[in-house]
């Protein structure tokens, strides 16, 4: 079996597995988020944090919950890292310096998991499990809660309320992420991913010298790293490390975990708004983008010119032999089209155009299918925009799911879409224009520019993957990427929740033959067009100077 065939078969297996779980998981989440009853363990949590899980919240209250929880999360994680030297069970690792600790705290709370440190060398078991792993669950559940709040905004009529943040958060963790992660961790452990609290093993190498191998609760963290589209690896090599991702099967399984929840959330959306077709249309747009990116990625990686790629049957530099080009391409596309940022190959070593695809995937706003929750809400905001243009073209005040898209809705959608480009372009421009930061880049010219552009694109979109080569362990990059992650995560949430509040307050307009039907392939196509044109055009000049210049050379 040739590598191309194997790549295509892996793709088909992946799509088949996702299709199998789409309805059950999507329906399950819809039930979870609309259930009246609380589990006993949930009641304990509510009592412990003093939250009333049955109080209906208007959007400012919902937002206050999101921001308060995240602020506390950042502070706790920062404190934990700063105190690591004094904590037991840290295997002798010292405290993390302030800029790095800030960056990492923000990174994990914002579901980015940008890692400007060597995972196995910097973080001990306590920080990894009590700090990072906890945020892997919580930050993912926050994203899902905000998405569900927006969906409720569409589904509800003439109320101003969006549900209860604490209930959504706790249910997301207890009833969705924890059970899924438990199963996934078992499967991964069965594949050979390590799960222990062992210290460092000194291992001799065949070529002489020695290597340090770390143990740790890797399988459990790996599962939620992918399920929650977090991406922060236990090891610096992330999913390229054999302890995190040992076999081609585990690789495919990890890609499956990345896509599972974001994909199934479109079903949840459809069920909650009372029309699964609407969910199919959003999923369709996501699928078209994902398939196009995967096809292009495989094409550019397989067909790259040059003696080395031709000898290896494709651009194998920076890729694990056990995954091959097919598995690596699937992973690279899935991780950048979601907000995961886990990697199983060096994105810096992708071909020029391949690196551009990874970059563009994030630049599109990570909507295909996007991060858990964040992918859905970003796509729905995009849909609001697409509906506005399309709605005008059918001669009515635009409506999406029975809600009128008026000046307020457009204002909030536009602000949402402005945040990331502003962060990415401003910080990238500063970083290449100021005298010191460019010294962090490993390569000159277009590739070096891509390293910086990639870093801020990844941070502002809460992806977390890195285009290796950039030394981000400097005060400048710690601070700027930290700000980009913070603003890139929470400013859009402000606008999404405000939008949800505005929609929930509206009366639902019944659909007529004159209403734009949004549960249709035509609309899905329009949505793809809007995503590509709006985001693509913003970044076109920057892309031209980075990956395009390199790829077309």
């Amino acid at each position, binding site marked *: 079996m040739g590598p191309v065939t194997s790549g295509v078969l892996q793709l088909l297996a992946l799509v088949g597995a996702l299709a199998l779980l789409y309805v059950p998981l999507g329906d399950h989440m819809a039930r979870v988020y609309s259930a009246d009853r609380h589990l006993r363990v949930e009641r304990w949590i509510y009592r412990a944090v003093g939250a009333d899980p049955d109080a209906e919240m208007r959007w400012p209250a919902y937002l206050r919950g999101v921001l308060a929880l995240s602020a506390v999360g950042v502070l706790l994680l920062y404190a934990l890292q700063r105190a690591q030297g004094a904590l037991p069970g840290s295997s002798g690792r010292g405290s993390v310096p302030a800029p790095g600790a800030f960056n990492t705290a923000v990174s994990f709370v914002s579901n980015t998991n940008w890692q400007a440190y060597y995972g196995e060398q910097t973080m001990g078991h306590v920080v990894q499990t009590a700090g990072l792993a906890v945020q892997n669950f919580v930050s993912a559940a926050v994203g899902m809660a905000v998405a569900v709040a927006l969906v409720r905004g569409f589904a509800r009529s003439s109320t101003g309320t969006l549900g209860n943040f604490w209930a959504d958060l706790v249910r997301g963790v207890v009833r969705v992420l924890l059970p899924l992660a438990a199963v996934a961790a078992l499967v991964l452990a069965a594949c050979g991913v390590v799960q222990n609290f062992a210290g460092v093993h000194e291992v001799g190498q065949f070529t002489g010298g020695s290597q340090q191998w770390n143990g740790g609760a890797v399988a459990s963290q790996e599962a939620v790293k992918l399920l929650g589209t977090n991406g922060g690896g236990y090891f610096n090599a992330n999913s390229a490390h054999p302890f995190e991702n040992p076999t081609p099967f585990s690789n495919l399984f990890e890609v499956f975990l990345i896509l599972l929840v974001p994909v199934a959330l479109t079903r949840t959306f459809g069920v909650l708004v009372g029309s699964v077709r609407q969910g199919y249309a959003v999923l369709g747009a996501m699928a078209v983008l994902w398939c196009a990116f995967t096809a292009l990625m495989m094409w550019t990686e397989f067909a790259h010119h040059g003696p080395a790629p031709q000898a290896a049957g494709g651009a194998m530099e920076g890729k694990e032999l056990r995954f091959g080009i097919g598995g690596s391409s699937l992973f690279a596309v899935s991780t950048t089209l979601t907000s995961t940022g886990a990697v199983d190959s060096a994105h810096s070593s992708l071909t020029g155009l391949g690196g551009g695809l990874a970059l563009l995937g994030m630049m599109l706003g990570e909507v295909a299918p996007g991060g858990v929750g964040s992918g859905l809400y970003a796509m729905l905001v995009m849909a609001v925009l697409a509906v*506005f*243009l399309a709605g005008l*073209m059918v001669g009515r005040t635009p409506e999406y799911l029975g809600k009128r898209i008026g000046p307020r809705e457009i204002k909030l959608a536009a602000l949402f879409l402005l945040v990331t480009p502003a962060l990415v372009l401003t910080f990238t*421009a*500063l970083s*290449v224009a100021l005298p010191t930061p460019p010294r962090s880049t490993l390569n000159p010219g277009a590739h070096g520019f891509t390293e910086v552009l990639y870093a801020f694109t990844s941070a502002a979109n809460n992806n977390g993957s890195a285009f290796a080569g950039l030394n981000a362990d400097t005060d400048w990059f710690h601070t700027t990427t930290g700000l980009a992650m913070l603003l890139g995560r929470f400013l859009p949430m402000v606008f999404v929740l405000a939008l949800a509040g505005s929609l929930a307050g509206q009366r639902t307009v019944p659909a007529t033959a*004159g209403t734009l039907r949004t549960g249709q392939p035509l609309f899905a196509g329009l949505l793809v067009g809007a995503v590509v044109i709006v985001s693509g055009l913003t970044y076109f000049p920057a892309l031209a100077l980075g990956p395009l210049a390199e790829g077309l050379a």
Partner: protein
Amino acid sequence: MTTRTRKHEDPMPPTSPPPSSTTPPVPAPEPARTDDPPAGRPAPGVRVGAGLFAPAQLVRSLPRACRKLDPRVMVATPVMCVVWVGAVLTTGCAVAEPGDWFGWTVAGWLWLTVLFANLAEAVAEGRGKAQADTLRRAKTDSVARRLTGAGSGAGGGYGGVEERVPGAGLAVGDLVVCEAGDTVPGDGDVVEGVASVDESAITGESAPVVRESGGDRCAVTGGTRVLSDRIVVRITAKPGETFLDRMIGLVEGAARQRTPNEIALNILLASLTLVFLLACVTLPAFAAHAGTDLSLVVLVALLVCLIPTTIGALLSAIGIAGMDRLVQRNVLAVSGRAVEAAGDVSTLLLDKTGTITYGNRRAAAFTPVRGADQAELAAAAQLSSLADGTPEGRSVVALAEEAYGLPERRRDEVAGAQWVAFTARTRMSGVDVDGRKVRKGAVGSVAAWVEERGGTVPPDTDDVAGGVAGAGGTPLLVAVEDAAGARVLGVVQLKDVVKPGMRERFDELRRMGIRTVMITGDNPRTAAAVAADAGVDDFLAEATPEDKLALIRREQEGGRLVAMTGDGTNDAPALAQADVGVAMNTGTSAAKEAGNMVDLDSDPTKLIEIVAIGKQLLITRGALTTFSLANDVAKFFAIIPALFATVHPGLDRLNVMRLTSPDSAILSAVVFNALVIVVLVPLALRGVRYRPASADRMLRRNLAVYGLGGLVVPFVGIKAVDLLLSLLPGIG
């Protein structure tokens, strides 16, 4: 729907009303005007027509366009304001480096871009201006004959001393006298008298109309002229706020406020501008990293090409032209908001009489009772109706001649006939000739007449008459008394006749997602029959003004927007409640005040056109925005290789248009960007083609034309401009 038993329309056989001594000697125009489809209006299914556009208007509007270059005016349109600033900046650059032909050319074309945008707006406004001037001519400084110390006398007459005051000096509540030849000094209601009034200054309709005190025809408009008789008018509007003043303001665009959709679109355009501004502001840093410098001129050129200038330039022209299209159809909208709401309407309330059916019932069939002969019945019906000048009577004669092949007869052909006129007491009419008495009238009256004369009414008479009534018609009994005695011949079926083409229109509306509800005073049975005949979706029978209001509220609570027409004072609450309330110009001032549109032609079917115009307005905006955004793709392919191919030669592969040189590539994009505005001005003023269709079909079509067109056209256009430019010496 409602089962109220109140009788709204008297079921008695319609015949001519007793002549009234107050009827003025002018043709009664209102009912007649609504009877026939107004001439010059598109037939059902035809696209909404275009406005006029002549290239000469561009030249005429040039001075206005130049005046709009004032930065205080430009600020109102963010996109064009950015272009304006860009033009100032590039001009500054060109002045600093006078030998740089490229800088001068770019600066020149940027100024042209701004000018073209202003020109589009000026042309749109100019068309309204001409109309406003005509209206102003009507608004001469009339002298009012005010009554002071006037009061309602015992006999209802108004007395008092007359004084002459300028029309501008009138206050609300003043009483003024207008006699033949006077111009009505202000809006008001006739409180005494009846007069024929020439309203051509406002409606353009030369036939005079009747205005009389009391009832629904009491409103007079300032600026119209009294042709006969004398009326006393109570002024209802302050000078400066009259209907005429409002009209002038509207057509001039002075009172133009941005509509919600326009505001939303402006926000979207402003934020897109901001995104592209960011992309351009950060570009020099990126370029410096790549080892090349970008001049300010080039950056401004790139920015102007990327921001949505096409729609930014045409947006306000589209809005003004949309209002103008209404004005051209003799509809005045109080606000642009109302026009937009018209596009969103999902329920139309239409009055049955005059809108869906002809104002009068028509004879549809003759049904003989047992023992009678069809031909005899037809002949008797014809004979009895010869002297009946009402539309119903004429329709009986016409039916007899057309459907039953009877020879044409005229009233004076019947020698020695004694015509029996209809009276409210006898409720029948007929003729006595050659010893034969023929009677036609209400079933009960004619049956009584037959029995009175010793005849018998056949038992199936009630069945036949009941069958006609059950089908929504009105039965008229025809009886004769001759040598053979008095006997019933049969029944004439009168029924409402739905205007031709209405069913197709309703089908069309249904495809557009609009539900039609017929409003009628008829009983539910009749209403149901007419509704089925016309193909409306629903009906409200025995409707009272309260029912209408309740229906509108119910629809609105379901989230639907409602449009209706009305003319009477009792329509005012419903007109005010409806999202689109079109008052007939013949209606009362209360109705006109309550609605948000006034139809000067008083044509209730125009509501359908108003909806189409509202939709067309929105479609034009959406289509041009899509076109404008799609254009950016080609501009990127023109400009980006031109900027960076020197440092990254690989990027020249993006130069898919093979443009001659970097300078000519940038210039071509700028020139195309400016010219496309001028090319699209007629489309913006006329509105894009609109045919009623489902949302899906419309979207597919508009996406194909304006989305794909917007992608492809600039590639061709920029290449063409580049070819032309390369012919100039010194380039390429």
